[in-house]
Structure formats: C-alpha cells, structure tokens
C-alpha cells in the first residue's frame, strides 16, 4: 500500500530537484561555497536531463501549500521542452563556466544564470497557472542579470529595455491569468481546455508570452539584449528561454482543445509580419548577436504563424501541435548552435577556419530550410500543415514560406559576413568552446532525423520536388546577399540605428525627468502657512482693540441689553 505513496514522493522529489538544484546552487553562491558552485555549474542541469528522460509522463504532483496550490508534472510536450532546454542549458553552463573563469562578476552572473535556469525548468514542469507564471517571472527577471552582465552602456540600455518589456509582459500575463481564472475557476492548466477566450484575454496572452519570443510589438529588446549578453547567456536566451513563450501559449491555449478563429488570425498576421520584419531589420545590424536576434524574431514569427493556424479550429490544432514542436526543436538547436559558433569565434580571437565556417553555415542555412538539414524537415512539416488546411492557406506554403526562407538565408549570409568581419579579442577556453560547438552542431544536425515524431516530415523533405523547393530559396538568398553586399559596400547601411533603439526608453526617461522637475517646484511652495501668517497682525490689532475700555463698555452694555431683551 505504501508503494504508490513512496513512488509519488520519489516522483515529487525528482520533480522538485529539477528546479531546485539550480536554485539551491544559486543560493549557495551567496555563501563561501561559491567556488564549488562555479565548478559544479554544468551539473545544475543534470537532474533536469535525467528527469526528462526517465520520469513517468502525466503524473501530477500536488503541493497544496505551495504558492496558492502548486501542481507539477511532466507531459509529452513538457518532456520535449525540458529535454531541449536542459540540453542547451547544460552546454551553456560549460561555456559560461569557462568564459567567466576570471571574471570579476562571476558569482553575480552565476546567481542569475542558475536562477534563470531554475525558472526555465520550473515552468516546464508547472501544471498550474500560477506556477507557470511564477517560474516564468523568475526566469524573466533573472535573465535581466544576464543581459546586463557586461556592465557597458549598451548593456545597461538593453537591460532597461528588456526590463521594461518584461514588466509589460508580466502585467499583461497577470491580467490574462486573472481573466482566465475568473472564467474557469480553476488554477490547473488542464482545465484550460474548452475555454472560450475573450479577445482581450487572447491579446493579453499574446503580449505576455510574446515578449519572450519577440513578437512584433514587443520585440524591441531582443537585438540589443542578445548582443549585450555574454554569449552563453545569449545562447540560452535564444535557445531555451525563448521557448518558454511558446510553451506558454501551448499551455494556456492548448492546441486542439481550444479554438479561436479571430485569435488565430491575430497570431498568423502578427507572426507573418514578424517573419518579414525580422529579416528586414536584421540586415541593418552589424553585430552578430543582433543579427541572430533578428533572425529569432523572424523564425519565431513563423512559429507564431503555425500557432495561429492551430488556433483556427480544433482539427488544425491537433495537426499544428506536432509541427510547432518540431519547429521549435529545430530552431532552438540551430540557434544555440549558431551562438556557440559565435562564441567560438569570439574566443579564438581570429577568423574561423574553413571547416569551422562550413560547420557554422550548416545550422545557419538549416534555419533557411536547406535540404538535408533539420530546417528542411521543419519547413516540410509546416508546408504539410498549410496544405492540409487548404484554401487560402495553401498560398502560404507556396508563396510566403519560400519568401521567408529566402529572407532567412539572406540574413544568415549576412550573419556569416558580419562574423567574419567582427573584431574579437580572444578569450580563454577555446577547447571547451570547440567541443561545445561540436556537440551542438551534431545535435542540430541529427536530432530531427533521429526523432520518431519527425520521421514522416523527414522522409517528405527528401522527396524530389520538395528538395528543389527547399533549395531555391537558399540559393536565391545567397544571390540576393551578394547583390546587396555590392550595393551596401558603397552606401553605409549601418547608420543611426542606435537612436531608434532607445526610443521607448527615451520617452520613459523624459517623462520621469519632467515629473521630477515638477516635484522640485512643488517642494518650494509652502503657500498655506505663509498666507496664514499674514493673518496674525490684524488678529493682534483686533485683540488690542477688544481690550479698550470703551469697547469693553460697549460690549457690556450690549450684553445687558441683549440678555434683557432676549429673556423678557
């Protein structure tokens, strides 16, 4: 009889360890044990990896006392996300450890790093609304420490922007959760199924999680933040934390169980716009991190489109969900691999060797859907989805996807170009960096091919026509890039993007400064008291007059007469 209890206890322990380990380690950073923590950093992600691979699915552990009713558990989606995130965090930890070996603010960084990690793992395991929100917030705010770590002006500015948008996202999310809770009356994520969403709730959810993935109106933080953060941090931002946004959508708007045509349209429109916009602004960036960020915006736009399609109706939802996950896995691995490559460049202190260049090109073009890459598989799946929806959505696959693929390849070539021309100083830990890059490269290259769920799409992507269809946008992108380079070598494109970046930020500061000026003026005035002071001399005079005998006599007489009259 005790065995189920024991089992569930063990289960709960395991699940708690996933987020608990990094959190505990973060706590230990504040103690003299910080050296040990620094050494053990990569192992923080190991429980998560273990859990993701071994823990049973769909067992929900209730922790009623925890934060208004905690629930945690692992489902299929969660397992994939956890696996993916843990892997990327694991790699990034190694990278960070070696990168920051001699850094002054090492401990600082690790605290935030570990906390963000805990948040990221925790939210994947969360099975309650508030739990998700809690870990999401923890992750978001901890990531601020990563963004700002370098301490440069750019980092500060990026951090401010990031924080502002995170805050907006948090508030939007908070509001959305309130409305959800109000309409469902339950905190469990399972109960989201079949809810009819208020459009406002949808919009709030879009914004709330959209901040994390750089959805269009709230994307501004991504480029500066990716650029400003140390590269391992950027890698997890782009590879792991970004997925929290997608997972959020999946959790709160479970595909296949809910539908909202209007919402779907909103998501599709915003995603499509972002997919193009990301490329356009990406081409203006001259820093590798920023370019990758814009690529993320663009790629996430595509994922948003997939999600939007899934929201259109239940059928579509059921089909879209696997595609979405496929795409997410593909993007994360590819993007992190790119970042680790970028890291390698930075650390080598010189340009890449050909081999390295080629290796880096693979994940880059994988994003554009180059045949034989995971990108091709993902894109095929996407097209398949669009195809099944039929009608107007068919045009999407025929027209829109190639265009974005072309754009992405253009952007990726631009990335390679920027990477080649970037000046780097060189850091320690080249060997580690190489190994990490290699691992990530391999992961990006083969995961989808080995993944059972992607098998159909994988085989489809190898079909002849598909092959060609996937190839021409890449080629087109390459051509376009060459043409564009020609033109832009004469006219400097990198003009005044700095100013625009801080636009929102500037407004905020101006308003604050204006308010503070007013406050200073307020403080100077002390009107009431001075005006009351003026009353004193007349009062004194009148009291003196009151004391004169004749006034006394008059009042005496008046009093006599009055009382006489009144009493008679």
């Amino acid at each position, binding site marked *: 009889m005790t065995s189920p209890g024991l089992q569930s206890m063990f289960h709960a322990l395991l699940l708690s360890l996933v987020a608990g380990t990094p959190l505990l380690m973060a706590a230990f950073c504040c103690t003299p044990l910080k050296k040990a923590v620094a050494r053990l950093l990569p192992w923080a992600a190991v429980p998560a990896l273990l859990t993701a691979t071994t823990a049973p699915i769909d067992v929900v552990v209730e922790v009623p006392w925890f934060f208004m009713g905690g629930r945690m558990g692992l489902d299929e989606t969660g397992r994939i996300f956890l696996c993916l995130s843990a892997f990327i965090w694991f790699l990034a930890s190694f990278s960070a450890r070696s990168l920051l070996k001699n850094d002054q603010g090492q401990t600082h960084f690790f605290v935030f790093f570990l906390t963000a990690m805990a948040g990221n793992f925790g939210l994947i395991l969360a099975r309650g609304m508030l739990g998700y929100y809690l870990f999401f917030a923890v992750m978001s705010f901890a990531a601020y420490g990563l963004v700002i770590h370098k301490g440069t002006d750019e980092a500060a500015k990026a951090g401010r922007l990031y924080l502002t948008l995170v805050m907006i996202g948090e508030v939007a999310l908070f509001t959305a959760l309130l409305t959800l809770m109000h309409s469902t009356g339950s905190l469990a994520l399972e109960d989201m199924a079949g809810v009819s969403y208020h459009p406002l709730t949808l919009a709030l959810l879009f914004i709330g999680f959209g901040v994390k993935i750089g959805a269009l109106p709230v994307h501004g933080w991504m480029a500066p933040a990716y650029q400003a953060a140390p590269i391992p941090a950027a890698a997890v931002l782009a590879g792991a934390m970004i997925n929290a946004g997608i997972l959020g959508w999946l959790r709160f708007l479970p595909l296949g169980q809910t539908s909202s045509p209007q919402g779907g349209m909103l998501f599709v429109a915003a995603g499509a716009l972002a997919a193009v916009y990301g490329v356009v602004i990406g081409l203006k960036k001259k820093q590798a991190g920023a370019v990758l960020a814009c690529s993320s915006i663009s790629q996430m736009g595509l994922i948003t489109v997939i999600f939007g399609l899934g929201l259109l109706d239940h059928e579509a939802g059921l089909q879209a969900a696997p595609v979405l996950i496929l795409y997410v896995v593909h993007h994360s691995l590819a993007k992190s691999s790119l970042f680790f490559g970028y890291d390698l460049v930075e650390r080598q202190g010189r340009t890449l060797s050909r081999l390295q260049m080629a290796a880096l090109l693979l994940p880059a073009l994988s994003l554009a859907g180059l045949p034989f890459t995971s990108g091709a598989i993902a894109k095929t799946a996407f097209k398949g989805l669009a195809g099944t929806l039929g009608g107007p959505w068919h045009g999407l696959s025929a027209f829109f996807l190639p265009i974005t693929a072309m754009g992405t390849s253009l952007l990726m070539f631009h990335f390679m170009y920027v990477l080649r021309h970037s000046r780097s100083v060189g850091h320690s830990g080249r060997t580690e960096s190489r190994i990490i890059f290699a691992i990530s490269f391999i992961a990006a290259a083969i995961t989808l091919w080995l993944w059972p769920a992607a098998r159909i799409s994988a085989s489809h992507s190898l079909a002849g026509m598909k092959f060609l269809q996937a190839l021409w946008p890449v080629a087109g992108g390459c051509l376009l890039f060459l043409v564009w380079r020609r033109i832009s070598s004469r006219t400097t494109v990198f003009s005044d993007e700095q100013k625009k970046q801080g636009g929102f930020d500037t407004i905020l500061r101006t308003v604050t400064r204006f308010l503070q000026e007013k406050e200073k003026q307020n403080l100077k005035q002390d009107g009431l008291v001075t005006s009351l002071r003026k009353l004193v001399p007349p009062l004194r005079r009148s009291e003196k007059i009151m004391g004169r005998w*004749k006034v006394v006599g*008059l009042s005496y*007489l008046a009093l006599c*007469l009055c009382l*006489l009259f009144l009493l008679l």
Partner: protein
Amino acid sequence: MRRTRNRHKRLDGFQRLFLLLVICLTALLGAILCTIHGPTPGLADAVAQFQEQSGVESPVTAVLLNFRGYDTLLEVMVLLLAVIGAWSLTEAPFPDQITEISPVQMGAVRLLAPVMCLVAAYLVWQGSHLAGGAFQGGAILGAAGVLLLVSELPWLRSTPVFSLRIGLVLGPLVFVGTALFCLFFTGDLLGYPEGTAGWLILLIETACALSIGLTLASLFAGGRPEDEVVLEHKPVDQSFNGERS
C-alpha cells in the same frame, strides 16, 4: 484750559452712542422696576416674628449678627482681606522726616481721639437696640485712627507688627471662634445657645469694632508696616526696598 475743558464737554461719536445705550438700559430697567409692584412681602414679618429670640432689640442688628450673621462673618473677612491685599501690594508710605504738626491740630487730636473712642464704644453698645453696631463703632474708631495717622503720632507706627496683626485678626478670630463655639454647643454655626445670644453678640461686636477700626486705619496708611516681612535670607542688593521706586 478753557478750551480743553470745552473739548471735554463735547462728546465724540462713541460716547454719544454709549450714552444712548446707557439711557436705553436705564429706561428699560426703570420701566421694569415700575412694573414690579404688587405685594412685595419682604422679610419684615419674619424678622419681627423672631426678634424675641435674637437676643437684640434692633432688627437690623438681629439680621446682621444673628439671622444673617454668616454674611457678616464673611464681610469681616472681606475687610481683613483688603488689608492683606494692601499690605501685599506695598509698604506704607513713610515720610522721610516728621513734619512739624501745628499745636492746634495736636490739641484737637488729643481732645478728639478719646471722645471718638468713647462714641465708638457707645455705638457698639447701642447696636443691640437701636441703629448702630460694630461697623458704625468701627468706623468711628477708624476715623480716630486716621486722625492719629494724619497727626503723625508715632504710637501707631511704633506698635509691634505682631500686636497690630493681632488687633486686625482679633475681630474675625473672635467671630469665627464664637461661631465654632456655638457650633459645638448647638450644632449650628452661629446658633447662639439659649439666652447667651445678647452677650455673645456684644462680644463679637466689640472685637469686630476694634478690628474694623484698626483695619480702616491700616487701609488709610496705604500699605504694610515696614518690618512686616522678616527676611530669612538677607537680600544681596536693595531691590526689596527699591521696589517702590
């Protein structure tokens, strides 16, 4: 001088207003006074009824010292208070040198003072059946004292302060003492035991007359005797004496 006087006669606006109000008030009160008629019984009958038991024949004295003796007790206190107040305020003005007194004045004083004392005694005695009594007698005594003071006769001044104080306090003290004595015997303050009323009243009247005379004279002197306040600590400077300047 004439002009100023004229100016004084003219009333300014305030005074006119004031005059008007005063006239109004007087008229009003007068009118009310006129309306109060009808039987105003007063207490004449009551007094007459108990005259027998009061121990004196004069109704006024009966009221003063028997029926409303308590009032009189307090009134004596008021007089004493006036002296204490006067003494607390200032020292009696003391001329620097004794001026010569004309022999006529001296002679008159020598003649008048004993006579006045005699008259006072008579008035006190007479108080029991006719108009008169302690106050009248005291007033005469006081006048005698004033006469002596004006004549700069030294005896009043050279009287030891303590005996002067005894003289001042004697009347009130006897009055209070008698009252308490009566309280002890009859249970009423100033409730004279049967048959003793006349004598006790006379005792009170005599003592009071003495004190009242002394009081009036002291008030006339305008302040305390020089050595009234005995310094326990000698002042460093003369601000005590300089107070009057």
